[in-house]
């Protein structure tokens, strides 16, 4: 299948457990071993208590649609997903927010609602890259 979106570039060393986890259909999040803060995006020191010991947990994959947009055109030549499509900010049950797409839903601003429950869907692009996309919960 033709890859319909830009591949993540660069894939940084501190995010390796995130990308490794996705290949096994797991959504992994960094968690501070000192204060327990679960955060996004991956970095070498905790943004809350600033210590260096960072571990990883498997997230539930559940969350809510914190904010969204409906794209009527592509904003990057390599992004070939057919418009209209939903650009989404997801608030994960574990706390952090990440950007993604809401799929398996009609891209209609009249029916999409902020705070609607969503769940992760794993979308394999290449042998190396699987992306976490989201769909309405309980589909």
């Amino acid at each position, binding site marked *: 299948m033709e890859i319909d979106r830009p591949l993540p570039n660069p894939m940084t060393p501190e995010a390796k457990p995130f990308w490794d986890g996705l290949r096994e259909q797991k959504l992994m999040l960094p968690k501070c071993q000192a204060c327990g803060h679960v955060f996004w995006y991956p970095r070498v020191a905790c943004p809350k208590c600033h210590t260096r010991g960072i571990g990883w947990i498997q997230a539930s994959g559940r969350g809510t649609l914190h904010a969204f947009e409906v794209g009527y055109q592509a904003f990057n030549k390599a*992004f070939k997903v057919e418009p209209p499509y939903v650009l989404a900010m997801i608030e994960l049950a574990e706390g952090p927010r990440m950007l993604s797409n809401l799929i398996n839903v009609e891209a209609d601003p009249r029916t999409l609602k902020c705070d609607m429950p969503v769940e992760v869907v794993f979308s394999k692009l290449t042998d190396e890259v699987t992306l976490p996309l989201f769909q309405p919960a309980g589909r």
Partner: protein
Amino acid sequence: MANLRDLSNVACIVGVDESDEMGTLPHKSQLSLHVEAVTNAVRDAGLKISDIDGIFTAGQHSPATIGEALGVMPRYVDGTTVGGCSFIIMVGHAVAALHHGLCDVAVISHGESGRSQVGVSPRRDTAIPGQFEAPFGFGPAPTMFGLITTRHMHRYGTTLEQWAQVAVSTRQWAALNPKALRREPITVADVLKARPVVWPFTVLNICLVTDAGGAVVLTRADRAKDCAKKPVYVRGLGEGAEHVSLTQMKDLTFSEATRISGEKAFRMAGVGPGDFQHIMLYDAFTSGPPIMLESLGLAKGLSYTHSGMYGIFPIIEATRQLRGECNQRQVPNVKLSLVNGMGGMLSAAGTLVLSNER
């Protein structure tokens, strides 16, 4: 003990101007827009290019590049780049540098070939947007501001009609400015039925992209008396930076950076949000000004010009308002003007309190 108030009224804006032309300029490089704006602003101040010894600029060119292009060897340089508000923040940096004698004549320069892309280096994704945003179709500013806007609509019940009204109002102001790119009047209905780009925005909610340059010249208050025009005193200044990636913003509907920068500027100037006769906001998107006003505790660029990092232009307009140079768009009896702008996605902010009285 350092006191913020020590910096109040010690330096003045003495020269402002734009590049020779603004709009669609495929015949002019980005660097030329800088040089035109600086030479025009220095002339406005009644100074010479050789008087410049402090160079401040944000964006793709370093202050050393601007110095080289002008034929000036600066003894103070500042290249703070935190988005479009960088130039507003640099007024504060220039005031501090002038106060301490690190330079005597500071020029803040902006030039951007945002529309024609002449002499512009290609953008490269850094680790965060390239890795965690681009694969989902995110990229330019409209794809970020829409998120802020839908969250605001969800939380406060704001409507598409209200955002459209912001575009209508800014266009009314631009109609009074002969240099504005878009001057024909528009209605709320026009905004709503324009080409949809990324809901909740149509093309008329989104910043114009133009080619433009602008520059501001500052010097200490004692020297300002010898310049060509009435000096504009920098009474208060503030800056702040909350986040870069939108996922890191605490509350999408409130700009912490704006609040921090505004509070500092008001405290330094000894004024409150209600004391201004004139307010200039950096409004690249229709949802920007309402959120900025709210964050400041209390409007106008969507139609005039927006080269990209737009923050130099509200300083130029506020200075002209305080000098009384604005003809049909002149606000009567302006003594105190507030300039506030944001950078990135409400990520950073700069605030200035400017006055024509000491």
